[in-house]
């Protein structure tokens, strides 16, 4: 059908269709990347990234690598980015990154490394374009049932053992998730409401009724205000023990924070100074 086309590609020539597809997808992918970097909202960022990945996936397909293209779309955009979005939603989409520089000279180092990486990429690309002869995908795409067939063959012949072994990895991961996240609550005994009422009336608790709430007066709506008993005396149980027991000193920082007299977060906020809560 398109043997001629394939042969042409082996020689490294670019067909018109391919060029058109590239010039449409390339800017889109690039725009996705830039959009991801510059959008302020994390969810938007993720969606921009999806655009980039979709563009890349289609480009793979155009480049005679349909399997890779679909994997790119299914795995990256379909699974991984969706997980990303889930996590973002769970954390709260308003949560913004801390822009505080924790490590001294972090920005500078990042700039240097970024630049270095860029140089590496450019040189590698330049070399690939000049020195390396294109091998083409004809052989892989035509023999033994084509690209997908070859991958399937490799997975079930040469790499059958590593492939099977990954199952051990998955089982371990599932087991680990269970161990670390699942709390077995069946064994903590829950009493029914009836049982609890009976216990209360039988005198197994200090008092049958709940503790009285704090008093709220016209002059105060603080929980620290005690309730008054019918005879006008103070009901001590009405104020939380915590309020009585907490000395003013420990609350000073909170007071200051509410009053807005403390400085905002600085670069050392994360290093954990003594008494810094």
């Amino acid at each position, binding site marked *: 059908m398109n043997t001629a086309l394939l042969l042409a590609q082996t020689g490294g020539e670019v067909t018109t269709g391919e060029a058109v597809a590239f010039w449409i997808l390339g800017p889109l992918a690039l725009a996705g990347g830039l959009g991801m970097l510059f959008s302020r909202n994390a969810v938007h960022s993720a969606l921009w990234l999806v655009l980039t990945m979709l563009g890349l996936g289609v480009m793979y397909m155009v480049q005679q690598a349909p399997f890779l293209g679909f994997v790119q779309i299914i795995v990256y955009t379909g699974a991984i980015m969706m997980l990303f979005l889930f996590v973002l939603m769970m954390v709260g989409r308003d949560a913004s990154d801390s822009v505080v520089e924790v490590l001294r000279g972090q920005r500078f180092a990042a700039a240097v490394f970024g630049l270095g990486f860029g140089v590496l990429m450019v040189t590698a690309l330049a070399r690939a374009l000049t020195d390396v002869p294109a091998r083409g995908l004809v052989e892989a795409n035509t023999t033994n049932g084509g690209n997908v067939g070859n991958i399937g063959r490799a997975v079930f012949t040469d790499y059958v053992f590593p492939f099977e072994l990954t199952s051990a990895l998955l089982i371990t991961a599932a*087991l680990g998730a269970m161990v670390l996240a699942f709390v077995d609550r069946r064994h903590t005994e829950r009493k029914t409401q009836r049982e609890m009422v009976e216990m209360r009336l039988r005198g197994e608790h200090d008092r049958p009724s709940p503790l009285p709430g704090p008093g709220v007066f016209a002059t105060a709506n603080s929980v620290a205000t005690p309730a008054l008993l019918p005879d006008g005396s103070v009901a001590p149980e009405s104020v939380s023990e915590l309020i009585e027991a907490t000395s003013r000193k420990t609350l000073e920082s909170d007071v200051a924070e509410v009053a807005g007299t403390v400085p905002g977060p600085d670069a050392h906020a994360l290093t954990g100074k003594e008494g810094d809560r």
Partner: protein
Amino acid sequence: MLLAQVEQVQVPDLDFPAIAPILIVLGAACVSVLFEAFLPRSARWAAQFGLSVLTLVGAGAALLAYLGDAPATGVTTLAGALAVDKPALFLWATLLILGLGSVFLMADRRVEPGGAFAADAAIRPGTIQDRAQATTVMQTEVFPLALFSLGGMMVFTASNDLLTMFIALEVLSLPLYLMCGLARRRRLISQEAAVKYFLLGAFASAFFLYGLALLYGYAGSIKLSAIAAAAGGSDRSDTLLFAGIGLLVVGLLFKAAVGPFHTWSPDVYQGAPTPVTAFMGACTKVAAFGGILRVFSVAFEATSWEWRGVLWGVAIVSMLIGAILGLTQTDIKRMVAYSSVAHAGFLLIGSIALTDEGRAATLFYLLTYGFTTLSVFAVISLVRDANGEATQISSWAGLAKRSPVVAGIFTVLLLALAGIPFTSGFVGKFVVFSAALADGMAPLVVIALLASAVAAFFYLRIIVLMYMREPEEDGPTVSLPGVPTTITIALGVAVTILLGVFPSAVLDWSVVGAFVS
């Protein structure tokens, strides 16, 4: 047109008897997970413990059965993914028996009432529910995890291509990360250890994977033999080769806790539950060095001139870090961790000798070191005070007075670590150093001996504390070990002394010849 070319896929040959031990261990791990799912909580401990022991013994039996008619040069099977040769079989046997000892330690519920593992690791530390579970019976997921890890280790030592090796590396590591965080006591430090190990381990895996990719780019194949062939004679870019080797080796050295890639080990050794520390200290070391030996001898032998100098340096750094930082430790588990870094340096010397003697010596050293380490941690788990294990070195003062037997056993083990004659540690050092010397590494041997003299100081410090100081008033007591721990300690001490006095039989076994590829 494409469909017409599809033909029947040839299933790769499967040498079942050869890989039976691996299949048994991994299969039993899956069964063990099912036990977790379907057995009532009360029956799990007995079932899991029984299954694990049975598995390891069964795998050992399968190994012995295969050993009888195994081809002398070894075979590769599963399309060359696994190479089952004499070194691999030796390592498997070592792993199985050390694994058995570790499983015994994990199963003990007497030293720490209820077991060394949390009853419910998902409960947040320090909460009311956490305090309530302080004395309830432990979680048993640790058994399948240990089996998976052990299976991964066995594959790792026998894998004949880098991809299998990488997956095996993950299979052995992932359960370890999990097990580190399951301690019953001091849970926060245990979870910290798990996270730290996980993050650094993931980082090291990335190094390994990157190296793998570069080597694939260089050789066009991930098979060790193909890489060797490519390196043997070709005009391809050496940059790819050496960058690949460097990154790959970093990943391997990390697993083996060779300095300067050791930074995780003191924290993790300290935080992990002691049976898991024992498992890591003994089995991971064996697996990692098994892998290092294979990769070096099979894939990179032709280029040994280029990388050997670097690894000389690494070995020296490792020995010095282990010996010198070990001096400053106040926690006994951290001290043993640093000692293991020093020992990793010694092992590396044997590994880079790349001779038959060097290989045999490293294997022998791994065996002896594994047993000694296992019992060292077993003994550490016995010395306890009100807060669990008394790992502060200072609190070991006068132990000999309170429990002369435990102090005596620990002294023997420490002397073995220091490499004093009539212990296995001495014979191990001797064989490694003689192989290294025969291979022309005299300066390295001298440095190694000086490092072991320095390291002897901190082993000795503990002996001094135990024998020559008076016990403190509220010092720790030695709790009576349960049967499993007793078996492990007895086994370890017996091997330590026996291999020190009559090493020749095992030395014979350790002469395994070359790797197959």
